[in-house]
């Protein structure tokens, strides 16, 4: 089979995204399996300096796509830029990680190339045809599909790949490709940004202290806030909490909220419906604090305290302070 593997590497205004390591690791691994060369795709002139960072993951080539309309992120301009590159180099695979942008850009690419798109894949194999396993229901079920197309366009499920540097003296060849884009596609480029959080966010925090219906009220979250602050973490919540108006949807962990992958997820008074679980299941450790020993979250957690969260959390806060003083 001819063609190379292109992997869309996300950045924001020249800042490499945390998912970039996942994308590059997955692409290099697939390239090794299929004996094909792998190239990182960086969109926009702001990304020109990022090629060498891609080398650390063992990718030998990078394309940096430039055009006056690629000044900032826009799903249509970025998608069409990758289409232009694909038309020039006829890749066999176009990959990304299934983040908001990763799925949005590849959906644009697939629509424009009239090709199938397998979002949030966990397994990519080439037999007689492309054989893919992808997630349904946010990860509660898996679906095996066969993709009837020479060109495979697929995203990897976010947090399903462990990023790994490639050992050795890695060299990368970076090619700048000027692409011609219809300026009208600039209609969906970002117009403005509002920065709300500096530093640690829900999806990058190493500690997430999360509350469910069991917290009982908006005020009940003050204790969770205090513990999260002490540990340099963030507060999350379940859908029941946002539906009750106790917290903003921004804090919601789950299938329709944020997917998280902290070192430890402290789930307080959360029963653990599947829609919540799929947002939290990538956590490395889970501590459930719940009065119900049979709650889903408790049976799925590695650690549990079977007691009232409003008694446990203040005691934990006191203990943390005591050990630090």
């Amino acid at each position, binding site marked *: 089979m001819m063609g190379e593997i292109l992997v869309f590497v996300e950045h924001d205004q020249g800042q490499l995204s945390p998912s970039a390591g996942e994308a590059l690791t997955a692409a290099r691994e697939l390239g090794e399996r299929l004996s094909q060369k792998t190239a990182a795709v960086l969109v926009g002139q702001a990304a020109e300096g990022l090629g060498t960072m891609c080398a650390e993951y063992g990718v030998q080539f990078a394309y940096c796509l430039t055009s006056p309309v690629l000044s900032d*992120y826009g*799903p*249509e301009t970025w998608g069409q830029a990758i289409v232009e590159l694909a038309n020039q180099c006829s890749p066999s695979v176009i990959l990304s990680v299934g983040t*908001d942008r990763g*799925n*949005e850009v590849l*959906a*644009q690419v697939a*629509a424009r190339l009239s090709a*199938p*798109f397998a*979002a*949030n894949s966990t397994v990519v194999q080439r037999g007689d045809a492309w054989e893919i396993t992808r*997630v*349904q*229901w*946010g990860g*509660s*079920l*898996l*679906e*095996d599909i*066969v*993709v*009837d197309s020479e060109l495979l366009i697929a995203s990897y499920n976010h947090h399903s790949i462990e990023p790994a540097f490639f050992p050795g003296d890695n060299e990368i060849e970076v090619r700048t490709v000027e692409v011609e884009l219809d300026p009208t596609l600039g*209609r*969906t480029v*970002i*117009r403005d*940004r*509002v920065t*709300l*959080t*500096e530093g640690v*966010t829900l999806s990058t925090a190493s*500690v997430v202290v999360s509350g469910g219906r069991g917290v009982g009220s908006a005020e009940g979250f003050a204790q969770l806030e205090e513990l999260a602050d002490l*540990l340099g*973490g963030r507060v999350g919540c379940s859908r029941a909490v946002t539906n009750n108006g106790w917290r903003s*949807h*921004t804090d919601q962990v789950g299938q*329709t*909220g944020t997917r998280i992958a902290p*070192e*430890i997820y402290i789930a307080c008074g959360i029963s653990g419906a*599947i*829609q919540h679980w799929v947002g939290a299941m990538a956590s*490395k*450790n889970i*501590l459930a604090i719940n009065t119900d020993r049979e709650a889903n979250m408790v049976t799925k*957690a*590695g*650690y*549990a*305290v*079977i*007691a009232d969260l409003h008694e*446990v959390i203040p*005691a934990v806060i006191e*203990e943390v302070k005591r*050990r630090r003083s």
Partner: protein
Amino acid sequence: MRVLVCVKRVPAPGSRINISPDQLNVDTAHLGFTTSPHEECALEEAAQIIEEHGGTVTVLTAGPTEAEEQLRYAASVGGTDFVLIPNNSGGDWDPERTANAITQAVNKLEAEDGQFDLIMFGNESADAGGFQVGVRVAVALDRPIVNGIKGIEINDRVFTARREVDTGVEVYQLEAPAVLGIREGINLPRYPTMKGRLASKKAEIAIAPIEVHPGGQNKVRLHRPEERVTETNVLGESAAAAARVVDLLDELGVL
């Protein structure tokens, strides 16, 4: 303002999702059905838009005859017109086929009653989660689309759309006719009122049969991910467990 909202009928699962014996679908024998959550919010947003600006909300779905239930629900919470593209194949169409059918339906509805100023999709469906139908329709219609939208302001014919990202908000401006992928959290959907329930009973549902070819993605089977078998280590049954909790935090290097 002429608004179209595309919705999907999905099972409302409990704590576990079972698979049908032929491994191709979710076993829905004991399940109710609902509108996919992002789309329920899209519908609420559309209802609020026409309350403020006037106009109509057409609600479209592709699905089995039973999807009429979701269209009738839509009628009870602000929808004004309803279209069902029948798919009685017993399973979902693939995303390309769904997008193709919706595109044809939009062309037909626009030829009859004029262009939609805004078409809304959910960011992704709760079940299949293909993340593409809205984008494919927008590209086919050559209209701008941005996904993940959690805020819309309308000024003249310009939609200012806000998307939450990890660190804040990205702001986009799309001129009508436009397409938006809506995310849960943009609003809290209303419950049907008595008046709404009446409207739901009276709603007329247009059936729009559309011939579409399958796309390139073929389902082989559904299966369950390997379940993480977890032995839960109970650290205690009272606030006295705090010391062991902090030991754990220390061990994990987050203290």
